[in-house]
């Protein structure tokens, strides 16, 4: 598309009459190849340019964004952003947009030209490999898609911040069915070749076969729960949420005034790394142009750092940690529409020293969970009650009976203190790098 983001951003800054102005512009292509009933049935190809302008006039803040098709449309965006700022009450907590900082170093594995240029035939070949690997012995892939996002963004502000980044994101999602059992897999990478389609298909086959043999769990018992990476990433998303500088400032986090305190098992170390090679959110700077960093959120069970964007760092009297984000990781569509907020870059749950079989054989009474209905945890109270859809009961170190229709219940902030084992292999799940994790003392409730 023939719009130069740098030129467009410079023009917006030039015509803005605000005290401070920030321009975020993004050019993106998203291609989806959908699988329905074992066949690739829909191919989509979408392209767009989006621009978001933040204007500040005497601490009054306005944000307006729009998809555009020619450079001069930014005039209207700047005008509307100014109009919103003028009619807004002043935000006395606002200090300043970020000032430019030296951005050095490099970040690997975030953009792949072959992925950006892949033709439909090549993409479909990957899906055919995946389907052939998954579909046998009565297992059929019902739904799925392979999504390729190719993007370039530029963020500039009137104080001199000038950062650009380009990336590729690949997301494979699929469900398969055998009788009344359903398996689900997800794979994430920054390149098409970063996904092993054969392995993904085999994994889906195994998950589905297991689900088809599952029986409803009966009774109530205390268990050690080994949670697979796909679901562990979901429930552990409370960690960056509770460490968000925004929630800390709002007093809405349970981790207020807990820096330096023990909040988890000493086996748990969680790192936010904005430059993780191959990380879905890796870049030299965040979405407001502040250099990204690598720092522990939790180190050996001790809460070490909160995550700040510039606005919230200003309120807390500290510096941004390079955690101002608006980009999604499974899709890049709405990046320009969202003002920055405090979010994790890439979250590394540090690996342990056990393989999955070790974790199982050490467990007397437990459950190995591959899939919840949805891994949702209340970040305020920490309470959860998750419906188990694909799991295996463990008894005396042996995982044998597949189960479903049960609820795993507990409190995540208590469960973090009860981590009793971490796998040694980590997996990319969205912007998490996470191993199998065993939590002790959770409640399993069945019919």
């Amino acid at each position, binding site marked *: 598309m023939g719009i130069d983001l740098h030129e467009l951003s410079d023009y917006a800054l030039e015509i803005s009459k605000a005290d401070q102005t920030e321009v975020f512009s993004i050019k993106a292509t998203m291609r989806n190849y959908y699988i329905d009933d074992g066949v690739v049935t829909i191919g989509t190809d979408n392209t767009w340019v989006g621009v978001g302008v933040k204007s500040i006039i005497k601490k009054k803040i306005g944000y307006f*964004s729009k998809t555009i098709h020619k450079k001069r449309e930014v005039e209207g965006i700047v005008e509307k952003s100014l109009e919103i700022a003028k009619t807004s009450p002043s935000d006395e907590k606002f200090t300043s947009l970020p000032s430019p900082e030296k951005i050095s170093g490099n970040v690997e594995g975030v953009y792949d030209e072959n992925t950006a240029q892949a033709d439909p035939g090549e993409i479909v070949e990957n899906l055919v490999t995946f389907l052939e690997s998954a579909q046998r012995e009565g297992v059929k892939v019902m739904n799925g898609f392979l999504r390729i996002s190719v993007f370039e963004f530029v963020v500039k502000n009137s104080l001199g911040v000038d950062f650009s980044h380009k990336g590729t994101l690949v997301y494979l999602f699929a469900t398969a069915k055998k009788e009344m059992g359903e398996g689900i897999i997800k794979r994430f990478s920054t390149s098409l070749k970063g996904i092993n389609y054969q392995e993904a298909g085999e994994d889906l086959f195994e998950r589905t076969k297991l689900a088809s043999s599952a029986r409803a769990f009966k009774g109530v018992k205390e268990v050690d729960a080994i949670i697979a990476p796909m679901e562990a990433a979901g429930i552990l998303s409370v960690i960056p949420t509770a460490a968000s500088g925004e929630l800390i400032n709002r007093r809405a986090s349970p981790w207020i005034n807990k820096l330096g305190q023990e909040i988890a098992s000493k086996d748990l170390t969680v790192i936010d790394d904005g430059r993780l090679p191959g990380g879905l959110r890796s870049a030299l700077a965040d979405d407001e142009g502040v250099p990204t960093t690598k720092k522990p959120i939790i180190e050996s069970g001790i809460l070490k750092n909160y995550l700040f964007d510039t606005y919230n760092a200003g309120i807390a009297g500290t510096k941004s940690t390079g955690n101002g984000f608006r980009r999604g990781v499974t899709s890049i569509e709405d990046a320009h529409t969202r003002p920055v907020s405090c979010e994790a870059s890439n979250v590394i749950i540090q690996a342990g020293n056990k393989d999955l079989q070790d974790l199982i054989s050490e467990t007397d009474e437990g459950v190995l969970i591959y899939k919840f*209905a949805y891994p949702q945890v*209340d970040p*305020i109270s920490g309470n959860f009650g998750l419906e188990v859809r694909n799991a295996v009961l463990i008894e005396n170190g042996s995982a044998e009976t597949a189960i479903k*229709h049960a609820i795993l219940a507990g409190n995540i902030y208590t469960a973090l203190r009860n981590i009793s084992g971490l796998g040694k292999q980590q997996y990319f799940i969205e912007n998490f790098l996470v191993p199998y994790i065993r939590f002790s003392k959770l409640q399993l409730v069945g019919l």
Partner: protein
Amino acid sequence: MPSVTDVVDYLIRKGVDFCDARLESRGTLRIEVVNSEIRAISSNEQRGLAIRVLINGVWGYASTTRLDKESIREAAEKAFKAAKVLAERAGRKKILLNSIVRTEEAKPRILIHPWEVPLSEKLDVLFSINKVQKEYSEKIVNVTTNYHERIDHYELANSLGSLLVWDEIRLSVSSASIAREAGKMQYSFMRKSGTRGFELLKELNPEEGRKVSEEAVKLLSAKKPPAGYLTVIADPSVAGVLAHEVMGHASEADEVIKKRSFLTGIIGERVGSELVTMVDDGTLNGAYGSIPFDSEGTPSSRTVIINKGVYTSYLHSLETASLMRVEPTGNGRAQDFNRRVFVRMTNTFFEPGEWSFDEIISDTKEGLLALKSIGGMEDPVGGGFQTTVLMGYIIKNGELTDLVRGFTLSGKALEILKTVDAVSKEFRLEGGHCGKGEEDYVPVSIGGPYMRAKMLVGGG
């Protein structure tokens, strides 16, 4: 800029089984007030053209935000090429779509267009609710009040001859309060929404904010809920999750055609007690999920999915209706011009019954009242129901007793529906956004009456 009919004419000349072009313009405004201060005011406009081509049972889609002749031609070629490439590999049969052909323009039925209301007036309403939330108690540590308006304009043409123009207007306001005491934290929330104008906010009593904070504070001392297979009185939000997530998603005919749905081949069979009637109705005036037309130009309709316990109908897009040889129901929807069209719900709910809420409580010897669902997840394969609720009350000998904190409800939907033995007159719909397979969000509403049934309870 070429019109949507120009694109369709161009593709017809290339030789397609079916095609359509849908121009979408969307304007949104979001305001977030936190602890009596503005946290964010952001507005967005997006405009794009979605083009679909059907060749030998396979779809090619393309969209573009550049609306000059050359870019649109390029997008049309991409859609055509995608359909051609995939059709060669898929080996599917030709599908003939049976669309209701019409030329029509539809305007939203609202009283006050949100664009006619100054920002300051919107802020006044939000600040007044936020203030009431905050002032309720010193235990309230954080209060948030959000406003969201969305104005959509659509123009659609298809190769069968339809030409449609319509607008949709949606508003929502929501509040959440967080209470804290002795290291414990709890919260509560409320949300009002609809395909309505600013009159929605004018009707809102700021005192509703007080109830939100009151619930959050009360939850600090709530007891642990019981666990096991219990008699549960589901409030309209919980009944709505059962209707939408389990029975609704499994009634989407694309899931039925590929036999992914546990409701495949079930038409005419009893799936619930006689008290259970379930409907998807996109025509309801003011409901958040209402639409004049779906994303394929089919007028929305009322589909009775379960009638007095007997399963009666699936929900259809043009493609599924054609494949199953029935009429389309106006349920082919897309999140936006970047996303695919497939079968989606509109307003999905259980119909009210004849009991009053008080009668149901007093008739319950031992049970649990489940209030305020905070989400659920579809399970079209297994038919499993799952939702987590914010709070509940233990019922003993026909009276509400202890307040209990959040818990999870679960069970097999068909087993739950067969145990429904009381349905209230009180009825409520709640608006929100539905994803299918964790994404592709479209505005919907869910709801129903208070319903008594047996379910699995855990968590808390």
